[in-house]
């Protein structure tokens, strides 16, 4: 009795031992799995009664249409467009209502602060800066997300989303990426932060990183309003008014297509440089179509996604509001700090077709893309607080009075589409990758691309005397 079995105490020991056994007998794992399945079959065989093949044949018929050569892609694009349309059209009214309520409360806050005898700088930072910034982000962000995410989750629950990955996998395979990346991109249309988080569905770490790094190239709900407003004013403004909406839609759609193209290009480039590697395998389950469970959809989309993203955005927007207010209201000489910064950025911004204020606005809008237009108007009108535009005509007059040309519009839209992700998305990228390096690249790659593209567009237009 000399052989004493030493008890294993740490998980590490158990794992090493298991690994040793596994390697000494390569077939062991297969045998265990085969055995489990045989056992399961033996139990299930006599006990489980299979339904008639009716439901399965329904699935087949639906798949015949939804993944067909002719109709697969058109249906996919139609569904996505419908979701965008419902989101954009449906979010206007509730956005306005939330904005009215919160801004009314802001007036109340101002009265209270005055009654309490608070110094004006404190009122400015807390109410006109922090609260106004927060109110803005919530008003612009909450309704579209509360519409988009349930719709998207509905598609998910119906079982349609895996079919999208099935339809598009081939293109991603050519970029040595994963077909499931399209699902993270779709999510990115709602919110890039949510899109980055959704990259968890991709198995291969390399392909997951590609999806995280490129998610920003699909414009989120926070950037769509800016794109739509500028496209309507400048591109729509070139044609008769009946065609305005149509032209603006075409321009915005082209921008989305450009974003998707850049996604493919960057994915391809990453797969051949920084994240070199062959396309790994992809195993994709195509679950049966099923009746959506509305309760689960609302819970998942509103609690897990909307509130989650909103919380992160609020954490970022509050300090940003305060900082913006300070910059706009501290004067050095005759000009506010914002004015000085814009002047300093001007030559650089001019080279890429923007002006100093636009570039500064994008920088100050880093915490949330929703506040870009309000800050820009604040700068142009020098009001010292974020401004809303009443109508598109008003907005156009303001922009044209500040020397906007069609080139400024094009470059602003391109920059908006391609520039750095918001801090909420960056924070998510950091949480998902756990690495400062990849988070920094998530910031750097879009930034560099935005500058290069805008520089080329602006310089060529000026060289060719188009402006």
């Amino acid at each position, binding site marked *: 009795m000399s052989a004493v079995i030493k008890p294993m105490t740490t998980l590490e020991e158990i794992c090493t031992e298991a690994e040793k056994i596994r390697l000494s007998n390569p077939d062991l794992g297969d045998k265990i*799995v085969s055995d489990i399945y045989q056992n399961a079959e033996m139990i299930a065989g006599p006990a489980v009664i299979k339904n008639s093949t009716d439901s399965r044949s329904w699935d087949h018929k639906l798949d015949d249409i939804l993944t067909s050569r002719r109709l697969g892609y058109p249906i996919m694009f139609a569904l996505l467009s419908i979701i965008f349309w419902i989101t954009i059209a449906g979010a206007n009214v509730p956005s306005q209502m939330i904005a009215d309520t919160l801004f009314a409360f802001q007036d109340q806050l101002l009265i209270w602060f005055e009654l309490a005898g608070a110094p004006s700088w404190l009122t400015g930072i807390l109410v006109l800066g922090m609260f106004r910034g927060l109110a803005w982000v919530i008003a612009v962000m909450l309704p579209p997300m509360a519409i988009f995410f349930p719709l998207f989750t509905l598609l998910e629950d119906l079982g349609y989303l895996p079919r999208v990955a099935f339809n598009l996998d081939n293109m991603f*395979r050519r970029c040595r990426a994963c077909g499931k990346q399209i699902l993270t991109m779709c999510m990115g249309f709602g919110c890039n932060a949510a899109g980055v988080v959704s990259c968890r569905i991709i198995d291969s770490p390399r392909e997951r990183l590609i999806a995280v790094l490129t998610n920003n190239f699909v414009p989120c709900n926070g950037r769509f309003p800016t794109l739509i407003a500028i496209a309507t004013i400048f591109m729509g403004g070139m044609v008769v008014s009946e065609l305005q909406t149509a032209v603006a839609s075409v321009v915005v759609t082209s921008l989305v297509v450009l974003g998707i193209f850049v996604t493919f290009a960057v994915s391809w480039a990453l797969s051949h440089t920084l994240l070199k590697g062959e396309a790994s395998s992809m195993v*994709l389950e195509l679950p049966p179509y099923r009746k959506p469970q509305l309760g689960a959809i609302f819970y998942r989309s509103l609690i897990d996604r909307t509130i989650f993203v909103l919380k992160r955005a609020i954490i970022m927007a509050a300090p940003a509001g305060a900082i913006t207010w300070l910059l706009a209201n501290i004067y050095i000489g005759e000009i506010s700090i914002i004015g000085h910064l814009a002047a300093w950025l001007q030559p650089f911004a001019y080279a890429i077709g923007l002006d100093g204020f636009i570039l500064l606005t994008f920088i100050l809008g880093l915490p949330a893309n929703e506040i870009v237009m309000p800050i820009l108007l604040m700068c142009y009108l020098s009001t010292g607080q974020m401004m809303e535009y009443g109508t598109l005509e008003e907005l156009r007059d303001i922009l044209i009075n500040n020397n906007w040309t069609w080139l400024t519009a094009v470059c602003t839209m391109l920059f908006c589409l391609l520039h750095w992700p918001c801090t909420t998305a960056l924070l998510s990228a950091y949480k998902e990758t756990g690495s400062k390096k990849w988070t920094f690249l998530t910031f750097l790659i879009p930034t560099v691309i935005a500058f290069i593209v805008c520089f080329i567009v602006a310089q060529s237009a000026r060289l060719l005397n188009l402006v």
Partner: protein
Amino acid sequence: MNTAITTIPLSTLGIGSACQIVSLNLQGLLRRRILDLGMVPGTPVQCIRKSPAGDPVAYMVRDTLIALRSEDASQIYVNPM
């Protein structure tokens, strides 16, 4: 034993045809994933449909529809039935 002659890669199976898995020439994570889905030697598999671009292809395994890329499916050897 004529298995050696009739064994073909899963990727060459035509739409609608059925087969039985003989062996998996896969390693690592993918091998485990495939095994976890119940694609063990002896399992019947039916080729159901191709994606619009021709790749990946969806197979019916144990009442579940599973899509595989052709590179991966070509490493799974089957006996047509």
